[in-house]
């Protein structure tokens, strides 16, 4: 691994971490698509700032772009508040318009310059090591400095406002009643998303910002109930996706941020399948267990109802289950196997007999 390769991975990891943090709150507040809207809406701000500053990483660019993002949020709310358009339609109206303005500005006036239409969507991480900045005597890729700063700001903000954010996210009514301004928190969060999107834009483009803000927190959401753990897990999952994405891109000679976006999806799918408790496999297993237990209970209840009656001889045979009760053969076998392994019945000479434990389970089930 070359130094350039290492630096790219570090930048990617920092971007992932910086995006995951506000992403957690977006996912929890059901505002995931605001990340899409904002990352598209910052484009005209970037272009305008670029016209003035003539380089893409000037603070003016970041300022204009962040403003552009927040303006998009404000416009969306203004449109929504007219009462003429529903919320989802309002989002879907504003950001394509802003993005189009940006694209038109670029293609008409900035065609031959650094900003290119493809870069807008995907960034160009491969160039990260080339753009270096020397601060405090240490020379590092500019990306590490800028995104590192963004990450630091996000950490500090979330750290300082942790309790307020937590309350406002899970119980907005109480938060409002206690005097925290939900509007301020909302716009604060949107500003954080904007600034992060702007900082990340140059490296990874609009699309990956969305992927990094939504997929790792969504995966973390499947793994835990605690906000603090969700934050840590999101960052971890984001970093893993970023670095594995880099290696996939290396191996297949393809665009890095596209690969990283893909990996966020892959990691999410893995978590979706294998998460303990909430994963699909765990759920399927639990459902299977419940079904077997219920079948055994039904069997035991049936046996106990007919125990000691004259019909017992016929009712307690295995054929009776499939014949009279209309159970499927497989179901009947499963019920018998489960009940036997739980020690609830004893089969002997083609008939099923309850054990003491079986009788207890049956009477508990009947009285429930």
């Amino acid at each position: 691994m070359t130094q350039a390769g290492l630096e790219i991975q570090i930048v990617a990891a920092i971007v992932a971490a910086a995006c995951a943090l506000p992403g957690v709150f977006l996912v929890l507040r059901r505002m995931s698509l605001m990340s899409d809207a904002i990352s598209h809406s910052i484009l005209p701000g970037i272009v305008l700032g670029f016209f003035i500053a003539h380089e893409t990483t000037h603070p003016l660019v970041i300022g204009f772009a962040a403003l552009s993002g927040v303006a998009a949020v404000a416009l969306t709310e203004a449109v929504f508040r007219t009462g003429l358009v529903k919320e989802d339609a309002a989002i879907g109206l504003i950001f394509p318009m802003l993005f189009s303005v940006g694209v038109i500005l670029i293609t008409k006036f900035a065609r031959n310059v650094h900003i290119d239409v493809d870069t807008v969507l995907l960034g160009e991480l491969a160039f990260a090591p080339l753009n270096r900045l020397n601060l405090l005597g240490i020379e590092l890729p500019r990306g590490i400095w800028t995104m590192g700063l963004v990450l630091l700001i996000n950490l500090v903000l979330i750290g300082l406002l942790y309790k307020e954010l937590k309350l406002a996210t899970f119980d907005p009514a109480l938060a409002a009643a206690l005097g925290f301004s939900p509007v301020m928190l909302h716009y604060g969060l949107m500003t954080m998303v904007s600034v992060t999107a702007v900082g990340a834009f140059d490296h990874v483009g609009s699309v990956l910002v969305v992927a990094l803000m939504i997929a790792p927190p969504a995966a973390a959401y499947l793994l835990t109930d605690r906000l603090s753990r969700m934050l840590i897990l999101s960052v971890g999952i984001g970093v893993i996706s970023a670095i594995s994405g880099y290696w996939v891109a290396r191996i297949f000679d393809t665009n890095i941020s596209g690969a990283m976006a893909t990996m966020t999806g892959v990691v999410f799918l893995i978590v979706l399948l294998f998460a303990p408790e909430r994963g699909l496999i765990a759920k399927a297993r639990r459902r299977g267990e419940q079904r077997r237990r219920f079948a055994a209970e039904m069997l035991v209840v049936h046996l106990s109802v007919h125990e000691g009656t004259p019909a017992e001889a016929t009712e307690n045979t295995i054929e009776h289950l499939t014949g009279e009760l209309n159970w499927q053969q497989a179901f009947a076998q499963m019920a018998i196997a489960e009940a036997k392994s739980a020690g609830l019945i004893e089969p002997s000479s083609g008939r099923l007999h309850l054990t003491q434990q079986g009788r207890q389970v049956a009477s508990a089930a009947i009285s429930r």
Partner: protein
Amino acid sequence: MNILELLTLMFTDYTLRTVALGSAVLGIVSGTLSTFAVLRKQSLLGDAMSHAALPGIVIAFLITGLKTPLVLMVGAMIAGWLGALLVINVTAHTRIKQDAALGMVLAVFFGFGMMLLSWLQHQNIASQAGLDKFLFGRAAALVTEDVLTMAGVGAVALICIGLFWKEFKLLSFDPEYAATLGFPVRKLDILLTTLIVIAVVVGLQAVGVVLMSAMIVAPGAAARQWTDRLGRMVLLSALFGATAGVGGAMISSLTENLPTGPMIVMLISGIVLISLLFAPNRGLVWTYFRQQRNSRRLRTAAVLETLYEMASHHGDPQRAHSLKSLRAAIAGRGVLYTLEQLAAQGLVRSDGDNWALTASGVEQAMQIVNAAPGHMQEALS
């Protein structure tokens, strides 16, 4: 060139005609489906589906080696459908909410598509050039075959809408009632979603993946402002879509280096803005003027009534009262202004600081009082 020349060229020049037709088809199909998407709050589904279509397009090319529009459209449809399926299942079986599912499908599929595209470009296969026109659209590159395919696929979608019109109407406005009537709501839902995916796919060549979502939201949102009836909404929506499509395609074809997608989106956004402002009844400008008119009427009635009641206490309905006392008795601002307006209409007269009803003013006031008796007297007694 001026508009007339442009319009003539649109019919005579092969390229422009093709472009215009293709964009018109796109506009009509997406406009029609847009109404339903907006009514059913599925606006952002279009966004996710259009981004998700990208890997489908690239893979279709990879598998078949063809770039014929039908092949690419089928690829886009399959990918879009897969995305929709994922969104529905993840939302149904986990605690992930729909917005997060949509966002993930959108970004991950699109990123995957870009990854494939970039891999393809590095392979130096000559024939893959031009796949990236699906990003922002290039209506200028439409040929007759493209337009025919778009029209064909679009026609299928529109025929479906026609066949199932009543069902979709019911589904959009009252799905529970539809269920109680025995309609297969789930199947209809899936059908309508599929049609929306088809609309997205038809438009991809002209508008591109990134901006197609606007064509699924904006025409419907604009049309909604002008009417409450579904049939008219659909027609208007299709008209708006076609206008924006043709207009945007024309402008971008005649300008250098301007991709079609952004131009079309700007036009349809303009149409939405005009609709939001000027549509009768709902339009903001109309609402503003209506509110002004209403508050003026209320103020006028309040002033006349107050003058009448206050004067009646003294037995003479035309007795004058000072401006100060009137201001104290009437809530709100603009008392003097209203008095001056009424004076201009001959309903009150003044001598400097005191204002009194004229004979016709008394008549008006009595009408108002008799129409809503009781409350002013109670307030003043």
